[in-house]
């Protein structure tokens, strides 16, 4: 029996407004506990919420970027529940009349665009932070007491809910990368999972391949990188398939995915399912986004990542285009190519070296990068690496690095290659019996011997020649 995963994602985006959602306490990291609070976010008796206008505008902007309809009449609602981090005993969120509904994200794939439906995006406030003292690794289980810091409480959050249109863990990861890049380009959030400004919960179920039924789904929480989201989803898919195939039924539960062990542990047991008793927030009046506002926000949208991937695909290929766009580096690539670099080479250099390096692409001089791309095989590896690391430094010039020459003289390199091969008989054996990947190992050893000055391409050819392949 073959199974098809059915995956939906709930993504919480921390808006980087200056103040909280319903009060004007400053938002930010690192403040001493309970120093960014006021009667409103502390829920003192009589305190009342006031909407942050920028948070509303950014939510609408995000909804437009996700292809959503913007509600003409939108209402905040109270979600009632008791917990340490919820001082009012309710969270102000949205229920039946959210700001954004019925959108879609086009995820470019080799077989065309996959349409991932966006059911809704709404605006709400974040909970406070609780530290559990005395238990294992700060978890509630076994804790002696808890300490609450209300600084984070009240930060604006946009919750995006996708339709269950995602069909694999890998697809979820690619969707999240695209979504994240979109959010970052709108300037509304840093959207970093590691810092908690982007949080992802996954709803996972499986069904017999080809059927349309929707079976019981479970919820996965507490995954703090896209990779872990994918791993968690994969683990849960496997678990659910095993359950169904053993004749049992999947139960509706919430799991935490423990990245270190790959284990799925059931979330804190709730005595009974929460009845949130949603009702319209009486302390706030409805929002009816004026038409001119929506149109202005729409006109301010940049060309979105999905569209740019498709455009770049024509000049490169889907994978390279995706990596460049979701890494926020496609514009740099265009400028580097315009400055004379070869397309694929420039894409490889940028993709392999700049993605995730934390450089600000806007600070990189494209002309210099283009020269580096052109000369990269001529110069020593170490020189190239150093140049890359300093690309964003003010006034960067490729000159000093291009002046260095990598050793390409075969006559000079051959003895070193021989030495390395003789010193590694086991690896040579393995290589000869099919482990082609070891080529990298040999090249690496030669690079080490030459302090990075050898030309890796020449070395690589020499090794192949010597090993007779």
């Amino acid at each position: 029996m073959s199974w098809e995963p059915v995956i939906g994602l709930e993504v919480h985006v921390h808006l980087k407004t200056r103040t909280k959602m319903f009060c004007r306490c400053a938002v930010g990291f690192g403040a001493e506990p309970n120093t960014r609070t006021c009667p409103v976010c502390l829920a003192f008796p009589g305190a009342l919420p006031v909407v942050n206008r920028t948070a509303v505008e950014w939510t609408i902007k995000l909804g437009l970027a996700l292809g959503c309809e913007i509600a003409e009449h939108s209402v905040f609602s109270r979600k009632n529940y008791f917990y340490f981090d919820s001082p009012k005993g309710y969270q102000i969120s949205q229920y039946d009349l959210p700001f954004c509904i019925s959108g879609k994200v086009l995820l470019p794939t080799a077989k065309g665009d996959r349409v991932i439906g966006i059911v809704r995006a709404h605006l709400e406030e974040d909970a406070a932070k609780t530290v559990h003292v005395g238990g294992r690794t700060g978890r509630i289980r076994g804790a002696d007491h808890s300490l609450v810091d209300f600084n984070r409480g009240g930060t604006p959050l946009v919750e995006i809910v996708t339709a269950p249109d995602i069909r694999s863990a890998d697809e979820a990861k690619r969707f999240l990368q695209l979504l994240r890049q979109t959010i970052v380009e709108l300037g509304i959030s840093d959207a970093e999972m590691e810092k908690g400004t982007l949080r992802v919960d996954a709803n996972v179920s499986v069904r017999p391949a080809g059927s349309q039924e929707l079976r019981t789904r479970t919820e996965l929480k507490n995954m703090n990188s896209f990779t872990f989201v994918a791993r968690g989803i994969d683990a849960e898919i496997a678990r659910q398939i095993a359950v169904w195939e053993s004749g049992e039924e999947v139960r509706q539960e919430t799991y935490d995915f423990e990245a270190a062990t790959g284990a799925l542990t059931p979330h804190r047991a709730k005595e009974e399912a929460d009845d949130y008793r949603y009702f319209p927030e009486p302390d706030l009046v409805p929002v009816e986004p004026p038409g001119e506002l929506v149109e202005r926000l729409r006109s301010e949208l940049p060309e979105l990542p999905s569209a740019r991937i498709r455009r770049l695909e024509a000049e490169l290929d889907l994978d390279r285009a995706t990596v460049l766009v979701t890494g926020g580096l496609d514009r740099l690539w265009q400028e580097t190519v315009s400055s004379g670099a070869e397309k694929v080479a420039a894409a490889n250099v940028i993709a392999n070296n700049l993605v995730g390096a934390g450089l600000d692409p806007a600070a990189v001089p494209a002309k210099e990068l283009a020269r580096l791309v052109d000369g990269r095989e001529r110069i020593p590896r170490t020189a190239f690496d150093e140049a890359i690391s300093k690309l964003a430094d003010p006034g960067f010039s490729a000159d000093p690095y291009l002046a260095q020459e990598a050793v390409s003289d075969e006559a000079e390199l051959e003895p070193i290659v021989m030495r390395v091969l003789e010193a590694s008989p086991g690896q040579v054996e393995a290589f000869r019996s099919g482990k082609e990947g070891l080529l990298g190992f040999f090249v690496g050893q030669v690079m080490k011997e030459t302090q990075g000055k050898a030309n890796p391409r020449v070395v690589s050819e020499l090794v192949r020649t010597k090993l007779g392949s």
Partner: protein
Amino acid sequence: MAISREEVQHVARLAWLALSPEEIERFAGELDKILDAIGIVAELDLDGVQPTSHPLDLVNVWDDDVPRDSLPREDVLANAPLADGGLFKVPTWRQ
């Protein structure tokens, strides 16, 4: 009967009120009578009637995203029953 003892218990749990059996008994009787009187709202034909959430017809009331001073921490904790190192201290969640 408009509300049963079990429903009163359920509602008390949702509202985090620890009621004694005597209180449950007493409140069940009172709430039952009250709900009976309230129940007459079922008599009206409300087809097509919009709900009123706000008596005043206001929309789009909001503030610019400009920070204001937060409370000094001594004020924040001034009425706290128990505090520790600048944080509110509470017993932990029962598993």
